[in-house]
């Protein structure tokens, strides 16, 4: 795996990127992230605004045209999708080796530790 200093993504950033697979404005991102995370990640306005600003700077998301003049709408970029997949594979590896090390025998088991 290529070494990237943006990896691993924070949980917040991961969910924001995932939510922006479809165009969304700020508040919609908040709602989507909450939904995607089963209510585990609730972003506050100030935190989300800073995160969007940072992701724009990194080129992971971009503003797109919208009907709504007062709210900006964003979408994930190719670069953003690439980093998301890199992090996905990183986590997949973690899951795989955790299951192997703890003898959980694959993902189809409903055994609990």
């Amino acid at each position, binding site marked *: 795996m290529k070494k990237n200093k943006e990896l691993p993504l924070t949980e*917040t950033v991961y969910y924001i990127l995932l939510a922006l697979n479809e165009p969304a*404005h*700020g*508040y919609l991102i*908040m709602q989507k992230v909450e939904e995607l995370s089963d209510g585990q990640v*609730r*972003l*506050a*306005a*100030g*935190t*989300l*605004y*800073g*995160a969007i600003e940072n992701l724009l700077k990194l080129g992971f998301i971009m503003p797109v045209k919208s009907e709504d003049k*007062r*709210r*900006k709408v964003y979408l994930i970029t190719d670069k953003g999708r690439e980093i998301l997949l890199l992090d996905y594979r990183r986590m997949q590896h973690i899951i795989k080796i955790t299951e192997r090390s703890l003898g959980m025998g694959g993902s189809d088991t409903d055994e609990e530790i």
Partner: protein
Amino acid sequence: MGWEVVILMKKFKIFVNFDKEEKWLNEMARNGWQLKGKSTRYRFCKGEPEDTVIKVDYRVFNKRDAYEDYLMLFKDSGWEHICGNRSCGSQYFKRIDESSDSDIFSDLSSKAGRYKRLSNVWMSLAMCYLTIFISFCLSNTIDINALLHPKLLYYTPGLWERSGAAFWKAFLIETPIVLLRGFIWYLIPVFFIAFVIFALLSEKEYRKMKKVTIAK
């Protein structure tokens, strides 16, 4: 015809810590003082006592549409913008939706980020003053020697050799002129130092919060 009495109050206060500022503003609201504006002083208007949550963010915006987008995000998520403008930095929000979260930040590192932004603004102001000061010195608009030795700003011949009433009379007559002549230039270095101090204090708050984030 009914009369409406509007009671206004202005208060001067400087905060280095946003949490303390928020606490104070919440207390004012509980006593019925609604924040209406802030320039050098806070402006309050007397109204109903309110048990509310007021939060401060620090952001400066270059573009109008970015500022509008920012305000809409807060409005959508249950926060009313009660004062602040695009270029002043401090943005004050009041919670209007009881069901929304009690803070405008959901993690410590973004909460700390506002101190970093504040510190950067103070630092760039300090650098502006430093540049002005140096260019005035180089162009001899400011005489550094006179700033270091204020006695040189008194032109009365033999003033410092006099004593008693003769000295004080001449000294007091000339002092207002001296203030106009030279002391005004002291303001530039004084402001520079003040801005650097503010920048360092915000930086300190930032570091303090960052440390907590790392420890977590």
